[in-house]
């Protein structure tokens, strides 16, 4: 199915952009008329993915983070967060709940939250080249034929 609308943003991996990414996703997805909870789930999921890119992909430097949001007629929202950072050696390990390389103040819950708050999470990563996290969430269509 072809996306009916698409947003693509690229910003440097500054932590101030975590809030910006959430706000951008919320504003763009608003056209699907999501419920408050659905929108909060999407904001949380994108916050986790963007924070991962900022903390882990570029630990000692700034680099580009690209956020793509695609909206589909059946209510599917596809969120993609891509970086060109150091990549993940062992994706399976990185996705284990509570596993973190981020130090004491990181909970290691990022991927668990993404999985819990969206319908599907895929992670593609190449060490030295970067990581792409793709999440799908289906928004309940409240008014048929109005999309």
């Amino acid at each position, binding site marked *: 199915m072809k996306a009916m609308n698409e947003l693509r943003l690229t910003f440097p991996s500054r932590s101030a952009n*975590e809030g910006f990414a959430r706000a951008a996703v919320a504003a763009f997805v608003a056209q699907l008329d999501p419920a408050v909870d659905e929108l909060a789930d999407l904001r949380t999921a994108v916050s986790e993915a963007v924070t991962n890119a*900022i903390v882990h992909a570029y630990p000692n430097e700034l680099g580009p983070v690209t956020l793509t949001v695609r909206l589909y007629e059946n209510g599917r929202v596809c969120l993609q967060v891509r970086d060109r950072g150091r990549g993940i050696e062992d994706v399976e390990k990185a996705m284990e709940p509570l596993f973190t390389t981020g130090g*004491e103040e990181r909970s290691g819950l*990022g991927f668990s939250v993404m999985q819990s708050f969206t319908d599907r999470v895929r992670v593609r990563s190449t060490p030295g080249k970067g990581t792409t996290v793709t999440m799908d969430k289906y928004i309940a269509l409240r008014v048929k034929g109005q999309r």
Partner: protein
Amino acid sequence: MQVNLTREGDTLIAAISGELDHHTAAAMRQQIDTAALSCRCRVLRLDFSALTFMDSSGIGLIMGRYRLMQSMGGCVQLQGVSGRLERMIRLAGLDKLPIWNTQEGKE
């Protein structure tokens, strides 16, 4: 993002408002820890009722404060926990810790 710190007897109450993410957590952490270390209270109560957003950085913040209070022989209580925050607390397994404010709901 703002942390309002008040003291009630042996309890330090940190009321967090605004958005709690990786970007804002560092400053919040510093404010709370400075107050906790100087007042030497037995209980640190984190009040989330005025939060408008929180991701898993908040779980990291709770875990870090739990460790700090434990190291001083104290404890952490949570107040104003939303449904979404509770989901994350359960994902982290923190629901097994004695961190719920037992006074909540009785007031």
